[in-house]
């Protein structure tokens, strides 16, 4: 018995690991009636050896699948071991892991067996059993099965904290090439169902307080990067569009890890595009927390991000007219645009300057990346400077004086140990 369940878990956790989302925050489900679990700001209970957070028990219900998407490890033509959990098995794994404080909750996805509704119905049974029979109030992230009916998806929303459905490829053309059965249209439809229901219920909640929770942690999606030849601009414009039209909480960018001998994609053994992935996430953050419009960061003249420097520094070097910014007088959103100053430091600066002009030693202590920021700001004791510095010189100075975690990856030099 125990050997069988161990094998199933190995197979179905392995197949689920390519879904990057592991967020457990943003929900507000509280423990009721002395049940078990509650949600809040999210906790990472462990980290894998690749440095990703382990917050949820991330598994597939089954890796049997009728679809043959070229980028997917569970595609029907792939020769891998198949397995399927029973509803009871998923529930008891979740409960026992949760009770031992291993996890924040469950991330349940599935290959599609028979048809979309049949699969969705099984997943629905898992979450209903957890919520209604086990009195479980921990986090549940449920993947929407493409093609599942509106009723089924809406019902699932009553029990899940977050729902997601993956765009898979950044463009429709890319997706059609690798996964002919899937389409962005389908994703839009499913995201739209949840968005509309959420809006409707939140309006009702203003009048009637007891309206049930509905996907309180919102929706997210994921795109595979580097399997098909899109530019960074195409990827981020799609992301921006989905953030705005479907009020998504997150878009995830997953560097493609070659898992197939398919000649349309990078060959097995090619290392995943980690630097690119990182730069995309940085751009995503600039859009969501730093007040940048995506067309400032990526546009026709500048369609791909610079791998050597971060996108904020890159923007600053392209817009020397915006600088220097005086931290003692400038508005918060202008300070936020200085490379080397983040949200927390910018807030501290704006609070602290009410009590006196800020000097270099204070800015350093507040925690900004002074070496980078000094080229773009003025402060109480900044040195007198007559001529404007050339962006190319600044770029070289910063690169020479800083250590990038990607330095080795960029010049292709091997490390000795």
């Amino acid at each position, binding site marked *: 018995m*125990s050997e069988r*369940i*161990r094998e199933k*878990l*190995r197979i179905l*956790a*392995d197949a*689920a*690991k*390519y879904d990057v989302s592991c967020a457990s925050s943003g929900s507000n489900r*509280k*423990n009721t009636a*002395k*049940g*078990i*679990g*509650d949600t809040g700001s999210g*906790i*990472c*209970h*462990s*980290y*894998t*050896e*690749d*440095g*990703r*957070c*382990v917050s949820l*028990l*991330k598994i597939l219900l089954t890796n049997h699948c009728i679809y043959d998407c070229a980028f997917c490890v569970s595609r029907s033509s792939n020769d891998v071991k198949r397995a399927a959990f029973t509803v009871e098995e998923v529930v008891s*794994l979740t409960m*026992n*892991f949760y*009770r*031992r*404080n*291993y996890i924040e909750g469950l991330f349940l996805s599935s290959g599609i067996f028979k048809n979309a509704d049949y699969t969705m119905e099984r997943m629905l049974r898992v979450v209903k059993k957890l919520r209604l029979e086990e*009195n479980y109030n921990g986090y549940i992230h449920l993947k929407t099965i493409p093609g599942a009916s509106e009723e089924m998806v809406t019902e699932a929303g009553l029990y899940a904290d977050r729902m997601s459905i993956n765009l898979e490829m950044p463009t429709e053309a890319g997706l059609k090439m690798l996964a002919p059965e899937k389409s962005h249209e389908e994703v839009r439809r499913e995201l739209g169902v949840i968005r509309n229901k959420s809006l409707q219920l939140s309006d009702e909640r203003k009048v009637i307080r007891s309206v049930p929770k509905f996907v309180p942690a919102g929706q997210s999606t994921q795109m595979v990067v580097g399997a098909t030849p899109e530019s960074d601009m195409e990827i981020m414009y799609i992301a921006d569009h989905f953030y705005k039209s479907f009020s998504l909480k997150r878009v995830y960018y997953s*560097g493609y*890890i070659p898992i197939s001998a398919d000649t349309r994609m990078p060959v097995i053994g090619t*290392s*995943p595009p*980690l630097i690119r992935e990182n730069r995309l996430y940085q751009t995503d953050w600039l859009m969501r927390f730093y007040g940048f419009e995506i067309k400032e960061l990526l546009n026709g003249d500048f369609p791909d991000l610079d791998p050597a420097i971060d996108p904020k520094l890159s923007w600053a070097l392209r817009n020397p007219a915006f600088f220097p910014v005086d931290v003692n007088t400038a508005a918060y959103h202008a300070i936020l645009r200085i490379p080397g100053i983040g949200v927390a430091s910018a807030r*501290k*600066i704006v*609070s*602290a*300057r*009410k*009590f*006196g002009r*800020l*000097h270099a030693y*204070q800015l350093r*202590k*507040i925690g900004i990346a002074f070496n980078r920021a000094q080229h773009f700001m003025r402060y109480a004791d900044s040195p007198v400077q007559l001529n404007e510095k050339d962006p190319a010189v600044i770029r070289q100075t910063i690169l020479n004086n800083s250590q990038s*975690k990607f330095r080795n990856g960029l010049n292709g030099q091997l490390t000795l140990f």
Partner: protein
Amino acid sequence: MVTYIFDGSFAGLLTAVFDSYALRHHEVVLVTRQEYQPAFSGTVCEIRSDEEKAARVWKGLEKKIGGRQCHKLYTVYLSEDTDAFRHLFGYARYLFDNGGDRLRDYGNSHVLAVEGYAKKVSRERHRMKAFVRFKKASNGLYFAVITPDFNVLPLIGDHFKNRYADQKWLIYDRRRQLGMYYDLHQVCEVKPEAVTAASVSVQAEVTLDETDELYTSLWQDYFKSTSITERKNLKLHLRHVPKRYWKYLPEKGF
């Protein structure tokens, strides 16, 4: 320059603030009795912890900066660091002298240092919420042993109470010999019975629930399977899970 020796208690720290005003000392070095080493010169002043004085200072602080910020000061105290105590002392005096709105004067070294310590303690508290791993005993008790860097056990009781309302649990801080026990109704502090030096300490054997081993190995399996070898990045892994925490974690082989 006057040296204040206090007993290391929170009340003692607040009493020191009170006395510094009562005695009109402006330049004060705070030191705990444990760490005090007599010097050749300088005035030394022994602070006697006084609940009444402490309460007055605490009330004054609450009036100036509010209960929430005061709680933050208490968490800084839990760092058990003499340097943090000195900054708390300086912080309190700075705010009393200049007004409560100075709590956001991040250009001041005490204000910034107190924020820094609060962040450190908060990070350790968060890690304990994450890294505590319960084992299930045959009598149904879920228990865990921890040795946090700071005394954060008092800060995590409510979190576990809200989360595990239907199971009995015990978290024990071995370094500080302090436990938190939840009996399905309330959380209370527990201390091990005093053991005399002569008596041989007998490690009480706990019998584990029969399913416990299975779930531990399932968790270890899961941890292995969910890692992507092509993306292996041990440097990042270690930054998130420093080695000193591995002793809590069954997935790291402990």
